[in-house]
């Protein structure tokens, strides 16, 4: 059955509670792990950095903003094409054995009779949105506009 936003936030609350932190990096790592992305892949680090960037700046474009910023973190810098390819491979591998219950929390289109694999942009953006939404749900946090 398709997850509602309450199901998703309840799940994020569950992660938050057991991690005992809302350190964004920690949350992103756990979410990627539970979605089946392996920490051993290059794409894992790229995605982690990409999601964090999108949390910090939701207006950032994927190919013109996120990929170059990710690439710059490495020496020598990694090309946009390599970043895109690594992320896409990691998502595809995880998708091939995905747990529909967990994936359904973040990507409702991935469940149902015609499951749809998210694109790179959808993958990172949806996770960023969910984590940001949860952060905003916590009453002591207010959004800062830049």
């Amino acid at each position: 059955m398709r997850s509602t936003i309450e199901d998703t936030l309840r799940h994020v609350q569950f992660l938050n509670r057991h991690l005992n932190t809302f350190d964004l990096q920690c949350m992103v790592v756990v979410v990627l792990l539970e979605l089946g992305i392996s920490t051993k892949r290059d794409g894992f680090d790229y995605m982690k950095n990409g999601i964090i960037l999108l949390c910090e700046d939701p207006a950032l474009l994927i190919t013109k903003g996120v990929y170059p910023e990710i690439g710059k973190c490495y020496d020598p810098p990694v090309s946009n094409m390599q970043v895109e390819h690594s992320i896409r491979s990691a998502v595809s591998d995880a998708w091939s054995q995905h747990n529909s219950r967990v994936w359904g929390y973040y990507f409702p289109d991935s469940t149902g009779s015609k499951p749809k694999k998210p694109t790179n942009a959808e993958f990172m953006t949806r996770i960023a949105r969910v984590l940001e939404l949860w952060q905003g749900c916590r009453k002591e946090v207010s959004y800062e506009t830049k």
Partner: protein
Amino acid sequence: MKLNNVASRREFLKTIPTQELDEILQAELRKENIDDDLVRLILDVLEEREADRPVEISVEVATAVEKYTTYLDGLGKEPAKPTRRWSVVLKVASALVVVGLLFFVVPQAANAENFFEMLARWTDSIFEFFSPGDDNKQPEYVFETDHPGLQQIYDAVVELGVTEPVVPMWVPEEYELLECKTTSISRDKSVHAVLSNERDTIFFRVSIIDTKNGVNIYKDELGVITYEHNGTTHYIMQNLNRQIATWNTEKNICSVAVDCQEDILFEILKSIYTTEED
């Protein structure tokens, strides 16, 4: 005792109290080399335990969604310009209507199963809203393929100056490129490619048209059907035992023909637009 398989590890973790599992999880995540399986197993065990006694969500979802969507909507707004009194009245009235709708519509939508569609729409609108300078509101096209033959075709097409998505990024395995030829005379430039797996063949052609005469595509007497994908109308027809798709972009006329199953043709067509940046 070393527990090698997943089932044994899971059974062992089930014997550990929740608080200790939390500590193991937190410690594992602080390590440089995380044991992926251990983290996933711990989360599974913890979720199983909580499935028996679900915990209520501790936040006001509707309010949070409203707050978040307002925040996203406010990103990137231009500074307010001086306005006449009547337009200020209109804007205030509009804002009141919007706020009213948010209070009535958003909470209901948030509690309904279609919230993700609303979130998705917000996400789509963010992409639309935050794609300044992209007049088409189209995702940026990135050609990416593992097939060396398709890469060669792409390189040939790019050399002609074609930047639109016209080259497939996928063909079934075992197809090898037999020929990729560029012809250029007068006002006509074309790339024509043949890929084969010794049983079946795929043909690809893109022509840059700068002539009133257009392009002839050969077909048999069977009808033509249309296939819409990515905002492009593809015309599907038959030529003896081959399925052909042809379509035009602003300056190019493209064709793909296969002599295998029709569903392969559709997969090839879809792969032209798979930018992964939707």
